[in-house]
């Protein structure tokens, strides 16, 4: 009976577990075309746990907000009224500018207008591993979500869908080490490839040495990879180095505060369908915008 007791044979058990993991890893490295079934099933099941956990935490937060923070809201209300008044003035100015821009755009016929269809989704969980920058949202294939759809927020680009299940989806954030996107500097129109660094900063690679780059320049999506719609805010240039005439380490502070995401918008119309010029590239799901 002792022969059958695996606890007496820890060395063999350790060997078996190690070999099992190596086989599992090898299988994926060789056939990394689709999403592994185990990954999809585990993610789908745990997304439900995350949904319950998030809703429990949300209830506690709502309770706090509703019952204990009313005084704060009153003060905030006064401030917001002032802000609305200022914004109304600003809006009138913006409308005038917008009208001028529309007229010029029509005259120059620079590009057809892009109408993006978006779907709001709540963030129900953060990444399970500190090594990967992902979030889980409460919309899945049942709501029309598919792999490689862009995820944005009112302030800028968030990331892309990497694993949709029926009721939830995993979003790879732009700051993940494996994430990348076509980007351009709005002022000088210099193009580059934006890559995640795994930290709260982004890096713009392959910027031509002759490009006009300044700290504070706004960086937007170029739409060249066919995932993110063109012209959406990514962030601002924080610092850069120039080595032997080439740009190196152009660091970008993202427009989106990735740790405070609560609701995001999924772009359900692919940029190509919406009138963009980019074509969708066919690559492996988690490496579609993989870093070069």
């Amino acid at each position: 009976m002792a022969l059958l007791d695996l606890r007496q044979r820890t060395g063999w058990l350790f060997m078996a577990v190690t070999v099992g993991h190596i086989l599992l890893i090898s299988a994926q490295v060789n056939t990394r075309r689709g999403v592994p079934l185990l990954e999809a099933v585990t993610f789908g099941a745990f997304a439900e746990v995350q949904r319950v956990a998030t809703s429990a935490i949300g209830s506690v937060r709502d309770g706090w907000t509703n019952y204990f923070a009313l005084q704060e809201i009153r003060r905030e209300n006064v401030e917001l009224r002032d802000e609305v008044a200022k914004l109304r003035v600003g809006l009138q100015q913006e409308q005038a500018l917008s009208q001028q821009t529309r007229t010029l755009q029509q005259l120059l016929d620079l590009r057809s207008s892009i109408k993006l269809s978006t779907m709001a989704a709540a963030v129900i969980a953060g990444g399970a591993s500190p090594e990967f920058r992902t979030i889980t949202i409460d919309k899945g294939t049942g709501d029309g979500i598919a792999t490689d759809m862009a995820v944005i927020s009112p302030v800028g680009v968030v990331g892309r869908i990497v694993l949709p299940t029926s009721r939830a989806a995993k979003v790879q954030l732009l700051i993940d080490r494996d994430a990348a996107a076509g980007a351009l500097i709005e002022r000088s129109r210099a193009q580059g490839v934006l890559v995640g660094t795994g930290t709260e900063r982004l890096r713009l690679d392959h910027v031509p040495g002759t490009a006009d780059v300044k700290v504070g320049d706004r960086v937007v999506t170029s739409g060249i990879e066919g995932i993110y719609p063109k012209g959406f805010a990514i962030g601002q240039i924080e610092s850069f180095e120039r080595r032997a005439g080439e740009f190196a380490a152009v660091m970008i502070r993202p427009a989106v505060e990735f740790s405070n995401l609560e609701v995001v918008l999924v772009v359900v119309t692919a940029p190509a369908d919406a009138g963009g010029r980019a074509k969708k590239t066919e690559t492996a799901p988690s490496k579609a915008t993989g870093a070069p």
Partner: protein
Amino acid sequence: MRAAGVLIAIALALALQTTLARFVVGGTAAIDLVLVAVVYIALTSGPVSGMLSGSVAGLIQDSLSSGLLGIGGLAKATVGFIVGFLGQQFIVTAALPRLVIFVGATVGHQALFMGIYVLLQQRTFPSPWKAVATQALGNAIVGMIAFAVVESFPGMMERRRAGRRSRH
């Protein structure tokens, strides 16, 4: 009964990691609560429990992340086994040895995790030293707190019971 406790600990660590950790540390999660749970289980239950819990927890964590399935599992299973083995060979009930174990386990886990990715040419980790050191420190602090809380619980209950008895 112990297996159920281990599974609950892993589930709790995963739930906390995915829901709370991102708020606490501002997006760049410097703590791996799942690893803390695995090290705790390994120290309290031995190498087999450490390895199996590491394997299961790592696999779940892998499937919830966007990386290769199995790398986190292998790294955590190995760390769980080694920590469990060390826990049986040496006395690690004092604070300092536990701190060293948590720091060592985090560094070992990160070395394995990053090493396998680099070996398979799936990811690069330019200058990860600061991130590893921060995580080692964060995990050690959380682990020490976890041990202190769990170990003070029976004594606290006993004191409450004694207090009630003396009142009657």
